[in-house]
């Protein structure tokens, strides 16, 4: 008789571990508890300019631990020691080191309420409504919040109150299982820094959300104003629990309307998911439209905020994906199937210039008679890069079958061989 645990283990092996190459150590996890291992790893590390990010993270965490008053000083020191230990012990640091940007963001977000009002910039009340009306013709959030009903309340609550908080965990699990090893740390960095930048903008450029306009009118705002659950108060009434009213009233970031991190998180999760599963892209875009609608319906954000969050996420994703994101290999079903990993979506132009052309390329070209096959051979890349004028830049092979005339390639061949 097979015990349930054994059954699950076998099932897991048959799904994920069938085609693991025995020599591959890529997907293996760290099991050591030896702090010296981490220290010698740091000593052997060749520092690069991007490592400054960790200095920034530690500076922010240090700042937060200094200004926070709520947990007492002893508890704060214990937290600092505990976090350092988690980073030093290899078995925990493999998780907590990539988690550092997210941790920094959470620390900073929590500490917002302790930043004295005298340090803070004035709160803008009319800027976002102005931008929204001028860019999009009218107040879209007002348009969407005009008609309320319990069905719509529930429909808005699902992405805003549930998927938003569960999404990062689900995405992380999916990325860990199905993506190339090393994708999850990239996601953690992108997610963490996106939120960190978002909270910094919210701190430096505080704006009042739509519920403020509805509750108080257009009077000047102060930092004494409590947060509001907006439309989520109706959800609390429907489900009969106090899930959001008290937590949003005590929110550390009351005037953080711009940019919307609900939009930012949704967009960055969707970008990573659609990078892994391109076929899901239309549904994932549908999810973004859904959560955008719900934030405006629940009077938490103006449309400008959503665009701001989306643009922030897109920029972070493009910067990160270009150079750090491991390439998906479509024939590999899970992380354990990978025996090598290439970083970056786009091939670096330099790498292609130094590509070696073996005689095999020529025979490949000669045997091909369709123009499509021709464009896929490296010969066309070589030809384009040498003949075009130098002021242009090249990233990908030309994929326009129209212009791939065999005569050109023949010329090139003659030039190359002659």
């Amino acid at each position, binding site marked *: 008789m097979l015990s349930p645990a054994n059954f699950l283990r076998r099932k897991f092996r048959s799904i994920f571990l069938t085609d693991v190459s025995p020599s591959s150590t890529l997907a293996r996890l760290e099991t050591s508890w030896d702090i010296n291992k981490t220290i010698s790893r740091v000593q052997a590390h060749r520092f690069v300019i991007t490592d400054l990010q960790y200095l920034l993270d530690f500076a922010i965490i240090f700042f937060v631990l200094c200004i926070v008053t709520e947990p007492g000083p002893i508890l704060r020191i214990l937290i600092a020691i505990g976090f350092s230990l988690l980073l030093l012990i290899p078995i925990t640091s493999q998780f907590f080191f990539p988690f550092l940007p997210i941790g920094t963001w959470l620390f900073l977000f929590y500490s917002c309420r302790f930043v004295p009002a005298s340090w803070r910039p*004035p709160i*803008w*009340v*009319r*800027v976002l409504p*102005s*931008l929204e*009306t*001028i*860019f*999009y*013709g*009218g107040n*879209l959030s*007002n*348009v*969407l*919040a*005009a*008609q309320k009903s319990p069905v719509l309340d529930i429909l808005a609550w699902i992405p805003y109150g549930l998927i938003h908080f569960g999404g990062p965990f689900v995405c992380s699990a999916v990325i860990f299982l199905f993506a190339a090893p090393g994708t999850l740390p990239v996601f953690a960095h992108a997610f963490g820094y996106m939120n960190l930048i978002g909270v910094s903008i919210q701190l430096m450029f505080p704006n009042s959300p739509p519920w403020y306009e509805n509750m*108080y*009118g*257009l*009077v*000047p705002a102060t930092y004494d104003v409590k947060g509001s659950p907006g439309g989520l108060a109706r959800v609390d009434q429907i489900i009969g629990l106090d899930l959001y009213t008290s937590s949003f009233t005590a929110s550390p970031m009351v005037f953080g309307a711009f940019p919307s991190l609900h939009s930012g998180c949704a967009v960055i999760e969707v970008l990573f998911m659609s990078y892994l599963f391109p076929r899901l892209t239309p549904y994932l875009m549908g999810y973004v*439209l859904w959560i*955008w*609608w719900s934030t*405006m319906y629940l009077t938490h954000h103006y*449309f400008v905020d959503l*665009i701001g969050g*989306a*643009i922030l996420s*897109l*920029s972070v994703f*493009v910067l990160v994906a*270009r150079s750090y994101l491991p390439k998906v290999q479509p024939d590999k079903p899970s992380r354990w199937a990978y025996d090598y990993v290439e970083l970056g979506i*786009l091939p670096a132009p330099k790498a292609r210039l130094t590509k070696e052309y073996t005689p095999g390329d020529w025979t490949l070209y000669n045997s091909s008679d369709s123009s499509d096959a021709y464009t896929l051979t490296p010969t066309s890349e070589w030809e*384009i890069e040498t*003949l*075009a*004028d130098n*002021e*242009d*830049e*090249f*990233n*990908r092979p*030309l*994929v*326009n079958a*129209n*212009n791939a*005339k065999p*005569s*050109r390639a023949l*010329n*090139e061949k003659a*030039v190359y061989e002659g």
Partner: protein
Amino acid sequence: MFSIVPRYFLGFLPLAAGAELITVFGIVNKASGIYGLLSIFTGHPINAAQWVLNIISIILLPFFLYALLSVRRQNPLPVVAYSYVYLLDMLANIAFTIFFSVTWFRGFDKVVASGDDDANAAKLDTASERGVSISVIVLVLLFRLYSCFVLFGYARMLVRKSGLRFDNGQGKSAMLQYVLLGLTPSFWRRGGRRAGKGRMVTTLEESGF
């Protein structure tokens, strides 16, 4: 040589990545049309200018999605067409922005004053709120202008890379190519305006070698 057409997006990203980002920014902005037209269901009144803007956005949304695919696949002609549409869309948007700014800021101080009867209402610093709003709007419009240059630069790169001229189109797209590239041939031509003035620009392919 100094050129108004950028060679890198923001000085460090390749034009391909820049064009892709700009297109996605366009797509998320065009999504506003969907929400604007939801006013049919919510019953919130919107005026004629809003109707026009929302309908333009909704019509352009699928076109921008198609443009994103073309930008990714590096198809020269669709990207050229897209650059022209982006330029026209930008000009239309500037017109809308000016129109909405005028109507909005005309009632700006009044709205604030009538919004609340308290003495507080007068304290709201409308001048600086207006100043911040206008600066953000101007910055966004400048960025869109820059995006336009980036798109044209990217389209020109693709056109030159694939050796297209306004008169060498083939098949169904020949007419489109003639119209798109024939408007300003010297902009798209390899070598630019200097081409043919003492500089040898004929490639092997063009000489029929």
